[in-house]
């Protein structure tokens, strides 16, 4: 750092000295401006959303969050986010519950069990799953997954477990909350798996050997040494995965079917915050409806900020040992 302050003899070459300093200032200025722009951007996003949602915020206040309604008919306009909050919660949480053990299993496989020769290829394959665009997964969800679920899986689950309200009568189209859950599981699986894998790779070899040398089985070693070691990072990975699921708009809107109600039957249609916004892209009827859609986006923004910051906090607190940055994130 101090080397930059080496200045040639200013009396001998006064103009050269000025040029040197100017170049430094210019570069630092431009680069600093870029960095400032990034920060300003986040603030701008927040402000713009609040501004756009303002008519709806002032009209409905926080009641918006608990009202189940979406009526754009002029004169009787009333909007509420409750059904979408419910849809978001039920799809994302169940998808996370399904994806988490799968992802941890994949990570364990890749770090402990896979034959050397399989490790790199399978890792690449799992990461490739993350690269598939949402619209393609949505397309697949409509015409491949949907029919399978509608014709085989949902009736099967309904007849076997129909006494549970979650598994009510199957839908007639392939679109349902259940399809959305499966799609979301596929989308968050690679993120959680990839972060967990790096966490497992970071467990020091001498810790693992110390456990195995006692005469424990590999699973006992994983449970006693690797999981505690990776615990914080896995929590962060799960939070990130949840954030991803909550923010996913396209694939979900393609397969979830739409609807403004709260019901427990997973095989029925519904909507999430993100999918409702995406579904309305062709235009909202009134300004208030537009503002309400932006209100939904604002809720999404708040949630994603909370999720991201808490994941970073968890990593900072617990994951100091591992050098895992939160490179993977982002929602589609």
């Amino acid at each position, binding site marked *: 750092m101090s080397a930059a302050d080496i200045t040639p003899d200013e009396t001998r070459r006064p103009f050269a000295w000025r040029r040197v300093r100017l170049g430094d200032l210019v570069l630092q200025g431009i680069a600093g401006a870029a960095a400032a722009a990034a920060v300003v951007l986040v603030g701008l996003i927040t402000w713009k959303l609040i501004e756009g949602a303002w008519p709806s915020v002032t009209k409905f206040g926080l009641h918006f969050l608990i009202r189940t309604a979406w009526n754009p008919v002029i004169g009787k306009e009333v909007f509420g986010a409750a059904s979408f909050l419910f849809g978001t919660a039920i799809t994302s949480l169940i998808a996370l519950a399904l994806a988490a053990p799968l992802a941890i299993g994949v990570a364990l496989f890749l770090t402990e069990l896979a034959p050397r020769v399989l490790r790199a290829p399978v890792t690449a394959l799992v990461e490739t799953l993350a690269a598939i665009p949402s619209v393609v997964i949505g397309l697949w969800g409509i015409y491949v997954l949907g029919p399978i679920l509608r014709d085989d899986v949902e009736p099967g689950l309904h007849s076997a477990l129909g006494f549970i309200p979650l598994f009510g009568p199957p839908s007639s189209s392939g679109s349902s909350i259940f399809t959305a859950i499966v799609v979301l599981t596929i989308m968050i699986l690679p993120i959680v798996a990839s972060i967990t894998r790096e966490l497992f790779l970071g467990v020091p070899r001498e*810790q693992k050997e110390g456990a195995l040398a006692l005469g424990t089985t590999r699973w006992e070693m994983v449970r*006693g040494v690797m999981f505690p070691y990776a615990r914080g990072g896995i929590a962060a990975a799960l939070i990130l995965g949840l954030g991803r699921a909550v923010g996913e708009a396209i694939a979900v809107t393609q397969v979830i079917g739409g609807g403004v109600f709260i019901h427990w039957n997973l095989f029925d249609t519904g909507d999430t915050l993100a999918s409702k916004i995406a579904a309305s892209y062709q235009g909202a009827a009134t300004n208030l409806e537009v503002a309400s859609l932006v209100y939904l986006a604002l809720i999404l923004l708040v949630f994603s900020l909370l999720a991201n910051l808490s994941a970073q906090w968890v990593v900072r607190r617990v994951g100091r040992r591992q050098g895992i940055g939160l490179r993977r994130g982002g929602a589609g």
Partner: protein
Amino acid sequence: MMEEPNVSITIDPTVRVETRRQPIPPKERLERIFRIEDVDALYSGKAALKGVTLDVYKNLVTAIIGPSGCGKSTFIRCLNRMNDLIPGFTQTGTIRYHGQDICAADVDPVAVRRHIGMVFQRPNPFPKSIYDNVAWGLKVLGMKDGIDDRVERALTQAALWDEVKDRLKASALSLSGGQQQRLCIARAIAVKPDVVLMDEPASALDPIATQAIEQLMNDLKSEYTFVIVTHNMQQAARVADMTAFFSISRGDEGQRFGELIEYDATEKIFTAPSDRKTEDYVTGRFG
């Protein structure tokens, strides 16, 4: 008959060693624990050890000495199948433990390690509390009855109990290096192994901590059998009953591998070694 070699073993006068070396019982009364026959150890096809044959006896401290790279750690890790964890590792020959070949295909390494424990070069306590470090193995291996007593006994045997008895719930990582290593020893002996392998256990520790560990070995060898790898000849001279000297040999094609050169009572290795190479090493002429 060799002429008396000019051997001088300097013992650091600042470290007072209280070991009272008992004379080794005659061969007939020694019980053999390991019969190692013609073992070759290879990493990805390259030999690290060749033709190792020796017997390890119960309730003795056996030291493995030799220059770096001679395969001492490889050898000791063969005894509890820890080399299985290294990809590309293969082994020929037999290692009989109480008569059973532990390298046979149908032997579960988990079972082997249950009876043959290991303490590593750098202390590696789990990031758990002091109590949990010792108790975890006991719980997992199903030795839950009277667990508190077992933990106390292990910590006492490892000469650590007095120092930690008031803070068993504290993190193990808050202990000093020497204490951590003793904790690892406690952890290993809590599950009541038959043999305890030590891979340079004191090389990362200061002389006081080293002395504590050497004393430990001496006190406990009536209950356990110790095999210790050490690069410190004086340590071997202090603690070991039997000493095995390994060295690096060259093959026909110029490849290097480790070989057992001489194995005998420590007294003899250090005062009247039979092999020229042993003599060179223990007198400090090389290595």
